[in-house]
Every structure is written in C-alpha cells, then in structure tokens.
C-alpha cells in the first residue's frame, strides 16, 4: 500500500514536470501568448518563438558563482540516490520467507513459521472448499503486518460471496487460530470458469482462454 502511494506521488511529480515543460515550450513556440492576447509577466520564460530553448547566456548565468557547482553536483547526487532507491523498491520481492509467531508465556523463545508451509496449508484448505477449482495463496510484505494474497478460480456457477465466507471461516480462521496471530488480513482475486457451451449459442465478445477471458 505504501509503495502504491509513493509510486503514484512520484509518477505524478514526473508527469507534472514533463507536462509543464512541454506546454511551456509549445506555448512559446506556437506564439500562443501573442495570439491569445495574454501578457505574461516579465520573468516568464520562453515567450517568443525566436528565442533558443536554453540560450548560452542562461546556461552559464550562475557558473561564476561559488555556490553553482556544489549545488548542481549535490542536487544531481540526491536525484541519483533517490531514483536508485525508488527503482530498488520496485524490484524488491513482495513475498516473505517466514512469519513471526507469538509465543505468549514462553520467555526467550522466538518462533518463525516458514511462509511456504503456511501458504501450502492455506492452498490445500482453500482447494477443498466447495466450487474451488484452483487456489494460489502467497504471504506478502505489507506495512505493519504481513498479508495474504490469494488467487482463486471457481468452477462454473461458483459463488464468489460464499467463497469469501468459507475462506474466512475455514482456512484463514484456522491459520489465525493455530498460529495465534491477532491479524492476518487477506485479499482474494476470484475468477469464475464458464461451462463449455453445449451448442454454439453464446456469441462472446473477445473470447480468449477459458477462465481468462476479459469482457470489454
């Protein structure tokens, strides 16, 4: 969740910078200020189609100042470090290898359960629920505490609402209970398969593979 917010804010900043620069150059290059009769303030950049994008004079305006090069190098370093961190945050795995389990009443014991064991138990528990064709469950990193993320495929005519209730009361409840965890929120993505049409009477828009077709 936190990564989503950071990504969206930074993408918005990058987009705003690009859009602003592009519009500024376009407005100057197409001479929109004169055509629309707008009088930009004196300090407004790029107002005339006859001026260069970045003139020699404006490029070297502050080069003589003592603060210029430290500022440029410092700013670029911050930008490089920041984008490197941003990129690493995208490449980092979201999966967890194990989960900490509370051990109330036992001092000095720290217990971790393998994520794979928990995932397999939950997958098996979900696959035996009614109308479930296939289930994949992963334990993922999230701010605060880990979360479960599941992808479940239901057999034709399966009931998604009932699946959610069965999953909550069955596999997830069992996992919470047996691990003694206070919370382990789960997100499920549910797909439903279609019965193969007995006769060709459904005209289906943009039909792809069974269970994977998208509508619209």
């Amino acid at each position, binding site marked *: 969740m936190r990564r989503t917010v950071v990504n969206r804010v930074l993408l918005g900043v990058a987009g705003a910078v690009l859009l602003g620069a592009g519009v500024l150059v376009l407005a100057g290059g197409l001479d929109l200020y004169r055509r629309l009769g707008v009088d930009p303030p004196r300090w407004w950049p790029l107002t*005339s189609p006859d001026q260069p994008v970045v003139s020699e004079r404006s490029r070297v305006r502050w080069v003589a100042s003592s603060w210029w090069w430290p500022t440029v190098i410092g700013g670029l370093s911050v930008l490089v470090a920041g984008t490197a961190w941003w990129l690493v945050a995208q490449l980092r795995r979201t999966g967890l290898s194990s989960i900490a389990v509370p051990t109330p009443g036992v001092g000095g014991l720290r217990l971790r359960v393998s994520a794979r064991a928990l995932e397999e138990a939950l997958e098996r528990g979900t696959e035996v629920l009614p109308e479930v064709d296939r289930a994949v469950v992963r334990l993922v990193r999230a701010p605060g505490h880990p979360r479960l993320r599941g992808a479940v495929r239901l057999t034709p005519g399966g009931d998604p609402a009932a699946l959610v209730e069965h999953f909550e009361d069955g596999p997830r409840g069992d996992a919470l209970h047996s691990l003694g965890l206070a919370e382990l929120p789960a997100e499920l993505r549910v797909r439903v398969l279609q019965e193969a049409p007995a006769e060709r009477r459904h005209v289906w828009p943009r039909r792809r593979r069974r269970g994977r077709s998208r509508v619209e």
Partner: protein
Amino acid sequence: MVSGEPQEASAERPEKARRLRASRAGAAALVSTAVLVGAGALLYDVIAVRAGQPARRWRAQIADELATRHLDDLGVLVGAGVAALLGGWLLWLAVAPGLRRWLVLRPYGGTSAAVDRAGIGHLLADRAAGLTGIDHLRIRVGRRRVRVTVSGPADPASVQRQLREELARVGVARPLRLDVRTVAGPTGGEAEG
C-alpha cells in the same frame, strides 16, 4: 483474542470496500530507470569536467542544440508535444485507480475479495444457458452496469429476474445495474463487441 477479531474487523470494514488501486510498479520502474540513467550520466560528466577533463561530446552537443534551435523549430515543437503527452499520461497513471478488470466484493471479516468482470459474465451466461427460448445472448459486463442483449421467444421479464438473482448472488460491493434488451432477430447477437 481470535474470536473477538472478526466482529471488530467487520465493524470497521464497510468503508474499506473501496476500489482496488494498482501499485504502478512497472511505470515507476521505467521512469526511475530513465531518470537514474540521465541524472547519473550528467553527474558523472559534471564531476569529470570539474576534475579537469573535457566535457563529453554528447553533453556539448545537447547544450549546443538547445542554444541554437529556436522555439519554433519543428524538432523542438515535436519534442515538446511528446513531453507534454508523456507527462499527461504519467499524471493519468498517478491519478487513475487502474485494475479496471476487478470488481470489489463485500468484505467479510478480515478477507477482502475482488471478482473478475469476465467471471461475472460467465456466471450470467451459465445461468442464461439453463433458460429456454434464448436464441442469442450477448453479455457485456462493465464496471457499473451489465448489458445483456437477448433474442428469441423467451420472456424478457423472467430472463431479467433470473439474471438479477444471479448478479445479486455475486455480492459485488457496489451493485451493478442490469439492463436486459431484447432484439427481434438474431442480428443483435451477431455484432462483435
């Protein structure tokens, strides 16, 4: 501890049934890579010049182009247009929720779920397959509304009732509107969506 949890969670859940939001990891990786490469190359060259080496050819060339090309130069205008479009697209990615394919279901306890829109279409089509008198059927599941086009001697009211029942069973958090339209001939079903 465990038994108290579901009640507590379900009490605070209803407002949590909001739309899914994509993490935009792919776009973020692309933009961060582009900025990293550009800023890194510039930083390297600036430091090299400060250390007494001559500037690389690419930097001198870019500075020269920027200083000689005027704003009404075609290349500059095209570049600015592309930058503005790209910027608008990135802003759209930042604001739009994404994951339009998934509809959020009513949460139950600590489990939230979303169902594939195509899956809802499959459920409706399978329900309609059990009805008699439908020659052609076309189902389009949007994010707010389901449009069904039926042709054949079936009673539209009963088709609508059955499909509405099926749709209610799915339990989508923001209920979908159901429009059932009957067309006279099979022509309505032939159109490719």
